[in-house]
């Protein structure tokens, strides 16, 4: 007799996790939703949402946050895809070394990692001292408390979330497909765009979603590297809830943020489904 398929284990095995999620995820979410519907002068309604959506500053913060997420995702993709390609094609210790290098940031405390970036990017930091001692710049470049530095720091932290799914997808590609493409007259770039990229798209989408989600919610990095001048949604929500004790408004902001992020994630997935590489299992 055949063993039961591993995917058909009784549902009750999942019940402890379901309870946990119910108590600590679904219930607070419902509470959050309820809280967000409370008006400023009592009563229930959508006034908090209206206040957020009609406020140019708040909308700017929301869009800025999503834009930051896209930039970090793009940076991770541009830097991570070649890395994943090299790691997949190289075997043995080279591959191990790359994985280790990519994983190391994950194993370091986020605060320590962020302070390291401050040391690198600061006015008297490593980059500025190097550039000015070479005589390339007169006055220190402003990288800390600027968005470029923030994108770099976030991209470094989120890199494994991009590289690991990409490596999984790339290693599933039959190497003889590359040979076949070349033998049929396609150069390296054509092979990359017509064969490699479509076939690693599932991993690329997964990596992009993970990177994006992690980048826009990276509160500590955003606050320390971004400093006071740049405000993103996590910091903004924190400000409203903790400093101003405006809980209903913070709750509404959280819900709007959640919906916006879900929309972006769905857009990523739709992009993937458009390309047919996704259909391949």
């Amino acid at each position: 007799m055949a063993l039961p398929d591993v995917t058909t284990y009784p549902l009750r095995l999942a019940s402890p996790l379901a309870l946990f999620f119910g108590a600590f995820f679904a219930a607070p979410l419902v509470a959050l939703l309820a809280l967000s519907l409370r008006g400023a002068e009592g009563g229930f309604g959508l006034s908090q949402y209206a206040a957020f959506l009609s406020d140019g500053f708040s909308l700017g913060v929301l869009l800025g946050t999503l834009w930051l997420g896209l930039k970090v995702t793009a940076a991770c993709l541009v830097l991570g895809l070649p890395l994943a390609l090299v790691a997949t094609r190289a075997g043995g210790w080279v591959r191990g070394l790359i994985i280790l290098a990519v994983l190391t940031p994950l194993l370091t405390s986020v605060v320590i990692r962020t302070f390291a970036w401050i040391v690198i990017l600061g006015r008297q930091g490593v980059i500025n001292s190097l550039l000015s001692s070479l005589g390339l710049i007169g006055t220190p470049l402003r990288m800390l408390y600027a968005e470029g530095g923030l994108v770099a720091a976030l991209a470094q932290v989120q890199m494994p979330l991009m590289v690991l799914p990409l490596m999984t997808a790339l290693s599933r590609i039959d190497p003889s497909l590359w040979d076949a493409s070349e033998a049929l007259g396609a150069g390296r770039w054509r092979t990359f765009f017509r064969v490699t990229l479509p076939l690693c798209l599932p991993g690329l989408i997964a990596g992009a979603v993970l990177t994006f989600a992690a980048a826009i919610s990276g509160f500590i990095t955003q606050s320390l590297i971004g400093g006071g001048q740049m405000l993103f949604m996590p910091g903004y929500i924190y400000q409203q809830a903790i400093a101003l004790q405006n809980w209903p408004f913070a709750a509404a902001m959280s819900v709007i943020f959640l919906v916006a992020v879900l929309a972006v994630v769905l857009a990523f997935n739709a992009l993937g489904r458009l390309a047919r590489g996704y259909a391949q299992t």
Partner: protein
Amino acid sequence: MPCSKIDAAGTATVTPSGARNQAQGQSHGRTQAEGRSVVLDGITHRYGGAIAVENVNLDIKGGELVSLLGPSGCGKTTLLRIVAGFLRQSEGRVIVGDQIIDALPPSRRAVGIVFQNYALFPHLTVAENVAYGLAARGAPRTEQAAEARRLLDLVQLGHAGARYPRQLSGGQQQRVALARALAIRPAVLLLDEPFAALDKNLRLDMQIEVKRLQRVAGVTTLLVTHDQEEALSLSDRVAVLSNGHLEQFAAPTTVYDAPESLFVNTFVGSANAVPGVLLGQDGDGPRIALDAGGEVVARPLARPIAPGARVTLCLRPEHLRLTEGQEGIAGIVEMALPLGPTVVHEVRVGAGRPLKIAEPRLGGGSLRPPGTPVRIAVAPGLASAFPAAA
């Protein structure tokens, strides 16, 4: 087509292979490029320090189908990858037509390859797979589609253009791979164990199909295989490789009937290798006294051997016959295997390995039960003798 500057290859345009005389290329509405000659000139390849292929010389005429035959690890796949350009040989030259192609990357060699696992692009339709090489050459879309359609018709898959490779059977996938390789009108077609993944009945059909397409296209073809039957049945000539060395390069019947080495004799077809001593040569040929008793006249020696030296004599099962008389080598039947058209007996002779004897059943080769004492007659002038391994 430019005239060849290489002596051996120069004959290619003058004497096309017999195959192309029957080609139906014209009936398909285009003039196919004449198959170009391929010369492997002193190819040696080392991986690190290990020699994979050593000083292999092959001179392949235009339109010829040549098999690279050998066990795994003999270097045949290395040679294929060198011709395709995936590997750069350590020494030697690859010449296609009158051009040395060593410096060209795979994408500019005009080499069509059918991979062992077919390597079809899973995210492209069958028609897009076939058109891939044309798209890479910048052909207009309408031409790509028309050409893909023509080639799919040629491999009898005209109806399957819109499907994806995973929706096709193994044999169909192979035909798509073949159509894709032929679409670029390759100067050379390389087939890497293309039939290994097919079951036996389908394999024969596909072998006939490939042979037919190769003739239609008139393309010079290199077939890598470890299957000697496949090599013998499909090839114009067979190159037998062992441990990176070319053992013999000749027509299939020559390789089978007149093997030049013990390896070729035992790898191609089956052979009973029996020890003996060379007595000398006379008008009939070399005479060999077998350790198991009896004397055999072999075919002329491939390389000279001093009289009195120990030799290994290769007796093919069909060279042997069971007799009732008192002549021949005495033995006892160990096993009788009726194999449809033939019957094979294993007969113990002396202390060595039992001899296999194959006789046609129609010719009176009846089954003899185990334990029957028999005599074995050897057809003269067919067996091959080689120096005994030290």
